[in-house]
């Protein structure tokens, strides 16, 4: 039996044999394999399908009924009767089994040399919804959904140009998943496209899981704490990046797109900066960078100053700091670690709990514990302010992955500040700076426009200058066409 089923000349056979072989060999006696025998003018046909992978109403109305009402039973008649496209004829049991798993219905007429498969797949998908992690106040709110067809639809609608090029890759040995590579052929840098193509082609894994998991396989340095590919759930962000000359990836069953090459500063930008007026956009961009810096430095600075360098504390602050510290039984390092840990605890608990409970959690954690911890003399209230401020600052980062990186990187900094004081702090800043300068994103420098220094890109990285002043795409992406539009003569 086994040997027979692998043979290419499997057909013709009896309908019962086909059903039995599929049932026992291919689906391991799955209870969901449905079949129906139909007899027309002495000929017997069988219809087989997996009942939860197909739209059963359509199978009944478009397949079963048509076959029952057919004047004669042969494949040509059936194909012309059934109003469904992409009907295929398959000859081996393996192919048929695979097709059934993709939502095909198998029709076999006894004594024929092949079998007919008709696609009636059932795809349950949610409607495109609002963005959850990258919320915008001003601008399009729609986010990618879990279906690649719908995501491609969003992008084609936004990028209605013939130069939008889509390449298809199938990745995953155990569970093949469709991955689409998108770029604008007249703008995107060829090297970037080729690099991405090579990385996808050489990727041998069992399963992709999700687009953010895929990025970790094909990133330049997956040991780094900083993400090198931008994962976004906003179609408008995705399309904007393609128009800047970047390369995009869409993964089936994943509600987010991947953008590369990106720079460190890309993670502190949103499309909202572009939708709002330039002065507001520039201000907010600068503010995010300052916030990132504060978020990393404030707590370590507190620890270092209070453990080693009381000289740098201003006179006026010295007394109030001394007052609040005088009741705390722990050294500043431990005090800061406890409080930072507590904030992370509240954040994680808030994220895991259902929304309604989560809000209560925030109040309990923030106000009740915050108040009580100072009154109990666990920490000084100035540290509470500092830790809350740096947590707040870390949430201004639009990219969730970068925000988490900033929150985590604080801990080694606090430790070093507690062990070595300012020397440790400077040491860790030097370490981070060297690390950032070394990183690459899709073989393009990661820390542009600071290193390599590219002042021509400042108009749309640190700042967001008016469009007439920044009518060029980022030089650091090396796009084929640098100018977005001609400046009007005024």
């Amino acid at each position, binding site marked *: 039996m086994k040997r027979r089923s692998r043979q290419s000349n499997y057909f013709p056979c009896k309908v019962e044999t086909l059903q039995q072989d599929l049932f026992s060999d291919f689906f391991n006696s799955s209870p969901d394999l449905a079949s129906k025998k139909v007899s027309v003018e002495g000929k017997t046909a069988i219809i087989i399908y997996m009942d939860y992978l197909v739209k059963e109403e359509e199978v009944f109305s478009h397949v079963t009924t048509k076959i029952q009402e057919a004047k004669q039973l042969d494949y040509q008649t059936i194909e012309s009767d059934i109003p469904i496209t992409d009907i295929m004829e398959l000859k081996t049991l393996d192919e048929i089994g695979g097709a059934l798993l993709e939502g095909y219905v198998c029709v076999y007429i006894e004594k024929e040399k092949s079998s007919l498969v008709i696609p009636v797949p059932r795809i349950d998908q949610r409607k495109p919804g609002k963005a959850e992690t990258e919320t915008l106040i001003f601008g399009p709110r729609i986010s990618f959904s879990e279906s690649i067809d719908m995501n491609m639809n969003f992008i084609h609608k936004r990028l209605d140009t013939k130069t939008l090029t889509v390449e298809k890759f199938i990745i995953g040995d155990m569970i093949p998943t469709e991955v689409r590579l998108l770029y604008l052929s007249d703008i995107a840098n060829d090297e970037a496209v080729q690099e991405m193509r090579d990385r996808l082609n050489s990727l041998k894994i069992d399963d992709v899981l999700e687009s953010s998991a895929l990025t970790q396989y094909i990133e330049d340095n997956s040991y780094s704490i900083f993400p090198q590919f931008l994962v976004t759930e906003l179609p408008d962000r995705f399309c904007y990046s393609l128009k800047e000359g970047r390369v995009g990836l869409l993964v089936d069953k994943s509600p987010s797109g991947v953008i590369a090459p990106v720079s460190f500063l890309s993670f502190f930008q949103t499309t909202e900066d572009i939708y709002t007026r330039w002065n507001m956009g520039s201000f907010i961009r600068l503010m995010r960078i300052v916030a990132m810096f504060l978020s990393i430095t404030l707590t370590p600075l507190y620890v270092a100053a*209070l*453990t*080693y*360098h*009381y*000289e740098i*504390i201003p*006179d006026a602050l*010295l*007394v109030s*700091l*001394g*007052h*609040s*510290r*005088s*009741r*705390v039984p722990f*050294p*500043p390092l431990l005090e800061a670690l406890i409080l930072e840990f507590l904030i992370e605890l509240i954040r994680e608990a808030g994220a895991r709990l259902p929304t309604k409970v989560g809000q209560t959690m925030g109040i309990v954690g923030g106000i009740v514990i915050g108040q009580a911890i100072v009154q109990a003399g666990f920490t000084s209230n100035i540290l509470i302010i500092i830790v809350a401020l740096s947590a707040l600052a870390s949430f201004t980062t639009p990219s969730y992955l970068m925000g988490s990186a900033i929150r985590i990187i604080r801990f080694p900094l606090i*430790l*070093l500040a507690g*062990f*070595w*004081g300012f*020397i440790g702090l400077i040491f860790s800043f030097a370490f981070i700076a060297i690390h950032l300068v070394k990183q690459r994103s899709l073989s393009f420098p990661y820390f542009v426009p600071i290193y390599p220094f590219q002042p021509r890109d400042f108009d749309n990285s640190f700042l967001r200058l008016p469009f007439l002043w920044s009518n060029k795409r980022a030089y650091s992406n090396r796009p084929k066409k640098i100018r977005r539009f001609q400046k009007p003569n005024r």
Partner: protein
Amino acid sequence: MVNNRKIIFVFISLLSLMIIPGCGHSKNVIEELGVASAYGLDINEQQQLDGTTVLYQFNPDITNASQIIRSTGETFSMVRSNANKKSGYKIVNGKLDTILFGPTIAKQGIVPYLDTIERDAAISNMLYVTMSEEPARDILSASNYEEAPNIGVYLHSLVDKSVRNEEIVSSTFHEFMRSYYRAGREPLVPIISIKENKASIDKVGIMHGDTHVGNLSLDEVFLVRLIRDKFQSGRINLEMDIEPFKQYIEESQHNSRKDQMYVVLDKLKNNTQIKLTNVDDLTYKVNVNLNARIIETSQQMTLENPKVVKILEQQINKKLEEDLKTVLKKSQQINSDVFGFGVKYNNHTRGEELTREQWQDLFPNIEVDYNVSTEIKRFGTVN
């Protein structure tokens, strides 16, 4: 191999994280410190150094009391270590911003004690050097120091405010040492005095080298500053003879019997040029260009009249020239060149460095010709 090396690298990094801190500077956790904000130094009857240390008070329950420690010793370092023995806190000097010398030390010379401070890298060079004519310990025990956390901080803000208001010459540690080592310009140090349990500055000590030899009133300090410094927005109160103005003073005020009138000048800027006209005779010519605004006169007069302003300017010039001569005479008597004429002399005799002793012989004999020209720019809304 590579993997092994990485593991060793990580291991060594972690190990050094634990071990190297031991080699570094000692921990100074803030609540375990007695942060000194001021030192007061006297010499007691046994010819020992008697130090008063003012500490920051970190206990939130005690709101209004300076933490003061008294200790004695042969040297400043011994005073400090003896103070340490008397306190549960580790006394550190990183936030020291005032040092106060009592009369006993000021008469002997303060530099031996400042020398110790110069060697301590933790102590800021911006600390103010001050003196008093009462024992330093009495000044630092004053109980009224406004909202400041302790008397040390109060003294610092008192001196700092006066310097900023251009009332006295700045005497930070750095500036004092610079004047001290530079022949031809003597340092000036503010004198802290105590009235009704509250410290204040109402004169400035003239130094001769590092010993206190005489005092200048704040009005006299203004004249010294006129030659020595540059005013950005100074203020002065002048007392003048009423006679030249008699005919311009308004009728209703005419019956006043006073023969003096007062003028307050504000937003005062000066431009002073000192010229050594004859090196052998040591004659100087000093041109002072002033411009200022009148904000107050004790007698009502019509300042809109250009003649009045003219007379006023002339009178101010005359008055200032006289006053400058008086102050010069005073400083020549105690042989302390507070104006800095010696620096000018040194600049003229290139090639040989002027020494303190040389200038002491020369200074009492110098002749200075002052020429003040005042310009009154505005007279505000007062009429």
